[in-house]
Every structure is written in structure tokens, then in C-alpha cells.
């Protein structure tokens, strides 16, 4: 079997990047090629050319480390007329210069939170230094600037997910708050005694607990779509639940944060709409990694977090169709969300402001707008191709480690960016500690998905997840380090 590296090497010898980039402009398929960036001496060995200087934990690496991190050939992808220059991308992320235990940080935990490019960090600083003001209130210059930037961010989000209007975009703290908003506002108004809500066994706690709270309060039922042994939804469960009647809402994740499974949300939405129920899609793990089009998908609600897509923490998005939002009562009461306030009653503003009570995370929203600029510049299709290649590479290479068990789909093409695994009787926390000794950051535990862990019959897994700045080298280091853990534990 030819490895990905061999494929890439073959691609590089048969194509020259410059020559193909033009031709690729009018083809929808990905073209990729290996490209040696000019001026970069790239030794083949896996040891640094210069010994990294002694550093204390937390100290920034010297410039030689960049040589280490990018010592192998750079990878370039072309989609349309855009070039994926991994070296440039890595250069944009200051944190990747850090040494952990004397080794360059290999950050493989982007499913938890993504790193931030300098552009986003700089914009936050610029906001606070140059135009910090409350939005929608002041008539003075900097308040107008802040308001414009805040609303521009909303428009960028609308454009990113192809919403019909920026008014369908509500700023929230993150996916968790977005889902709670729907449960508390739409849910309390629409879900009653004996009604049903369909969920899946692979949901994150944030797409389970808000519905448990609602169901308890309203006397409604939760119905779960089960999983096959290889981590796909049991579609038959879904159909049966739908046909059982009384279903008001279907809520499911687009991509599993544990297994990486990509769910057929479009088909589920079509089926659910035939029965007249609404659908919420938890897009926390999809919007950062692939083009998402809410009109094409036709979801009623979509929730995602800014921090998983290179934006700041504390900012996220609830998208909902305008007609639904207009009927929804407020979630929080306070300033900004009102039309008129009297002593005993008030009237509400139109969406999205009805749902943005109080001073919101202005800097966060502006930072998220910058992050979207950044991701769009690379191109979401490009990002998807990059993440997909790395996921497949990681799946293949980890799969060769003696004693390893990979959870979820056996075909890496049906998973996005995330791989959960275990090795013999090595507990996930011990694995993560051993990887940390080698400067590799992965997640271990139940990943806020205990029902899924129960279904898998484990108490925890180790999870490695990739994003725009990760490289094959880092995957190789991960695999080497997992093998080392196997030796330490004598697997």
C-alpha cells in the first residue's frame, strides 16, 4: 500500500506548483503538491540541526525551533486558485514557537480549542487600544467604530454560513449558551407535556443537559438515536422515533467531538421537516473545519463556538431562521434587548438584539470577525482538504501501532479532524502525560460525552485532533510517542 507520504512525493515530482495553480482555478477538485519553499534548508533527519537552547518551561523557543518544526518538506494544497502554504500558516501562530519540555509544542487538541493567529490577537489589542467603546449607544466617533466592527463581524458570520441575513446571527458565549438559549426560549414556548425531543448518543453534554432540564420542567421525553459499533448513527432508530409522533425537535451534532463521525445532517433535517419538527445542529466541530451552508442544510438552528475556529474564547453564535427567531421570547432580560420599558411590562426589540441583553462580548465578536477573515483567506475547502489529509494520515499511522484501538468509523474518510484511541491497558491520562513529556498536547478523559463513553464501554479515551497548523511531522511525533508509551507500559 502506498503511504500518503509516497503519494505526496509522487505528486511533487509530477507537478510543479506554479504550473498547476492556474489550471486548477477552474476545477472543483483539490490539487495538491509537495513544494520546497525557496530559501528553506530542509534536512531530512528528525533531529534538530542545531540543538535547541536550554529553556525553562514557558520560555519561548529561539528561531532555530522553526527550523525544527518545518524541517521536512512543506505541504501545499491548491483549491481553486488558492495555495495552502503550511509554513506561512504556522508562522501566523505565535504559540507554535513554544517549547514544552524542551520540544516544540505539537498542539493536537484543537477540538477542545483552536490556537489564535497573530491577526486575531492583534485585532483584540487594537480594539482596546484604539476604539474600545460600548456598541449601539454612543454617538461619538469610537463608539461608531466599535459598533461598525461589531456589526461587520455579524455580517461576516452570516456570509460564512450563508445565512439569509445578519439578523439571523445572535452573539452568545459559545455553543453551550446557544443551545441553552434555544432550550429556554424556543423550548419553553414550544415543548409541552408528552412531547418528544430526539437526540443522539454521541452528543456533547452541552447538547444533552439543556434538554434534560427542559424535559423535566415540561414533562417531555428524550429519545436517543443509538450508535453502531463503528460510531455511526442507527438511522432506523431515528425513523422510528420520528414516526412515534409528538416530536417537536431533533437536535444532533454535525461532527462528533469524540469519534469525528460526520453525520448526515442534511438527510435528517429533510426527514424531520416532513414530520413538522424543528432541527438544531451542533456545529461546534464542523464550522471550523468545512464549508457549512445553512440554507442548503436547511437547519432551523445552528450553534457553534468562536474559540474552536481561531477566535477568542467567550464568543459564539446561534443561527436561527428569521421566522422562528421572531416568534421566540427573550432569553435574558436587560439593556439593549428592549424597545420600551415601563414599570410593569416591556416590549422587545426585533432579533437579533432581543437575544443580546446587556453589554455583550464586543472584543470577542470583533476578534471572531477577524478569525473568519483569516480562515476565509485560506479557504474553508482548503482547510477541509488539509484536515482530511492529516486525519487520514493519522488514522493510518496510529492504526499500525501495536495494541492500539481506534474508536469510531474505520474509514477515516467519514471522520473529520478527530481520532480517539486507547492503547492496551494504558489509561488515557497516563497516555496524555507521557505524550506531554514529548511536547505533544492531546486530550484525555470522557470529552464531555459520558453517554457515548458508556456506549463504547470505556471510561475515557485519548483524543488527538488536527487543525490548519498541524503537520505530518507532528503526526509522526505523536505516533512515535504513543509507541514509546507502549514501551514504557510494556504493551
Amino acid at each position: 500500500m502506498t503511504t500518503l507520504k509516497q503519494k505526496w512525493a509522487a505528486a511533487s515530482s509530477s507537478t510543479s506548483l506554479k504550473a498547476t495553480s492556474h489550471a486548477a482555478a477552474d476545477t472543483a477538485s483539490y490539487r495538491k503538491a509537495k513544494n520546497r519553499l525557496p530559501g528553506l534548508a530542509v534536512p531530512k533527519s528528525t533531529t534538530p540541526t542545531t540543538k535547541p537552547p536550554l529553556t525553562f518551561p514557558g520560555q519561548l523557543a529561539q528561531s532555530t525551533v522553526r527550523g525544527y518544526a518545518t524541517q521536512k518538506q512543506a505541504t501545499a494544497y491548491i483549491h481553486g486558485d488558492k495555495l495552502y502554504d503550511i509554513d506561512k500558516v504556522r508562522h501566523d501562530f505565535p504559540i507554535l514557537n513554544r517549547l514544552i519540555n524542551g520540544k516544540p509544542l505539537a498542539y493536537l487538541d484543537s477540538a477542545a480549542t483552536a490556537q489564535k493567529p497573530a491577526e486575531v490577537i492583534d485585532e483584540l489589542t487594537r480594539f482596546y487600544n484604539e476604539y474600545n467603546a460600548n456598541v449601539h449607544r454612543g454617538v461619538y466617533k469610537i463608539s461608531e467604530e466599535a459598533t461598525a466592527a461589531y456589526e461587520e463581524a455579524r455580517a461576516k458570520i452570516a456570509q460564512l454560513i450563508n445565512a439569509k441575513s445578519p439578523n439571523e446571527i445572535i452573539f452568545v458565549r459559545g455553543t453551550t449558551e446557544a443551545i441553552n438559549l434555544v432550550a429556554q426560549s424556543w423550548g419553553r414556548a414550544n415543548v409541552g407535556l408528552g412531547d418528544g425531543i430526539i437526540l443522539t448518543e454521541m452528543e456533547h453534554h452541552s447538547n444533552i443537559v439543556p434538554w434534560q432540564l427542559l424535559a423535566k420542567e415540561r414533562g417531555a421525553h428524550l429519545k436517543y438515536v443509538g450508535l453502531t459499533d463503528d460510531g455511526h448513527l442507527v438511522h432506523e432508530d431515528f425513523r422510528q422515533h420520528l414516526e412515534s409522533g409528538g416530536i417537536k425537535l431533533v437536535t444532533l451534532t454535525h461532527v462528533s467531538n469524540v469519534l469525528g463521525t460526520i453525520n448526515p445532517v442534511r438527510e435528517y433535517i429533510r426527514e424531520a421537516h416532513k414530520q413538522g419538527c424543528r432541527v438544531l445542529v451542533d456545529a461546534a466541530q464542523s464550522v471550523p473545519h468545512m464549508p457549512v451552508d445553512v440554507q442548503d442544510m436547511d437547519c432551523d438552528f445552528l450553534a457553534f463556538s468562536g474559540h474552536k475556529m481561531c477566535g477568542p474564547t467567550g464568543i459564539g453564535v446561534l443561527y436561527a431562521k428569521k421566522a422562528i427567531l421572531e416568534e421566540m421570547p427573550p432569553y435574558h432580560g436587560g439593556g439593549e434587548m428592549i424597545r420600551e420599558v415601563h414599570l410593569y411590562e416591556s416590549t422587545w426589540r426585533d432579533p437579533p438584539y432581543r437575544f443580546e441583553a446587556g453589554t455583550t462580548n464586543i472584543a470577542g465578536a470583533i476578534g471572531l470577525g477577524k478569525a473568519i477573515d483569516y480562515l476565509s483567506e485560506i479557504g474553508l475547502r482548503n482547510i477541509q482538504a488539509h484536515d482530511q489529509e492529516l486525519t487520514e494520515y493519522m488514522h493510518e499511522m496510529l492504526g499500525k501501532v501495536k495494541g492500539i484501538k481506534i474508536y469510531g468509523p474505520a474509514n477515516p474518510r467519514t471522520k473529520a479532524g478527530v481520532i480517539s484511541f486507547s492503547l492496551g491497558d494504558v489509561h488515557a491520562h497516563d497516555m496524555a502525560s507521557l505524550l506531554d513529556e514529548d511536547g505533544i498536547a492531546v486530550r484525555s478523559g470522557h470529552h464531555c460525552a459520558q453517554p457515548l463513553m458508556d456506549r463504547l464501554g470505556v471510561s475515557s479515551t485519548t483524543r488527538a485532533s488536527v487543525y490548519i497548523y498541524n503537520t505530518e511531522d507532528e503526526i509522526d511525533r505523536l505516533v512515535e510517542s504513543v509507541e514509546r508509551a507502549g514501551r514504557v507500559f510494556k504493551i
Partner: protein
Amino acid sequence: MSSIYSEIILDYYRYPRNKGTLPHAQIHARDTNPLCGDVVEMQLEVDEKNNVKDVKFNGQGCAISQASASMLTELVKGKTIDDARKISKEDVLSLIGGQLTAVRLKCALLSLKVLKTGVYNYIGSTDASKDELSGL
């Protein structure tokens, strides 16, 4: 960098000493580490002079939490309740050896917390003992 995963830790993880249950234990406590799902349960049989006649642990979780629980049972066995009460964090950490990060410290000290919870329930807790437990 020296790994925390010494031969000794791995040995206690794979071949735990004093693992099991004591049906006639007077002292029984259990706790979990919600961060990583480690579970440790401790049972102690005590005679009328407050000597620990027998001790067993049960549980599941990472090597650090399980090995430290097993090591702790050996430390306690044959001692008095008062000796058990006086065991310090440092005592447990020196059994484990190596450098632990803050998160892994919780794993290492879970069994001590469970032991002390049981002991204080038995001899009576005070404000000081509650503070001590919440500091573990």
C-alpha cells in the same frame, strides 16, 4: 526528563497489592476525581486499640491513582488510626517519586483523600480536618 512512570508504579498498577473488599470493615470511604473519572474506595478493619488490622482498596483509573492507592494501603497496614491520620501529602508523593503536574497531583492524592475522609468519619471530623480534606 525523567518519567513519572517508574517500574515501581507500573508494577503496582499491574499487580496491585491489597486490592479487594473487606466485609467487616469499620471504615469505608469512596471518592472520584471528576476531572478524569478515577475512582478509589478504601476499607479498613480496626481493632479495639485502633490498630489497622487490615486494609483494602478498590477502584479504577490511571496508573498514578491506582498505584498510589495500593502503596498507601501498605503504608497504613499495621499502623494505628492516629498514624494514618498523620500521613501527609509529601509521604504519598515520596512513595510515588518523580515530578507530577498539578492535574496529575489530584490523581496521586485521591487515595489519601479517601483514606482521610474515612478516618475522620470514624474518629469525628473537625473544622481543621474539613479544611485539610478540601486542600487535598
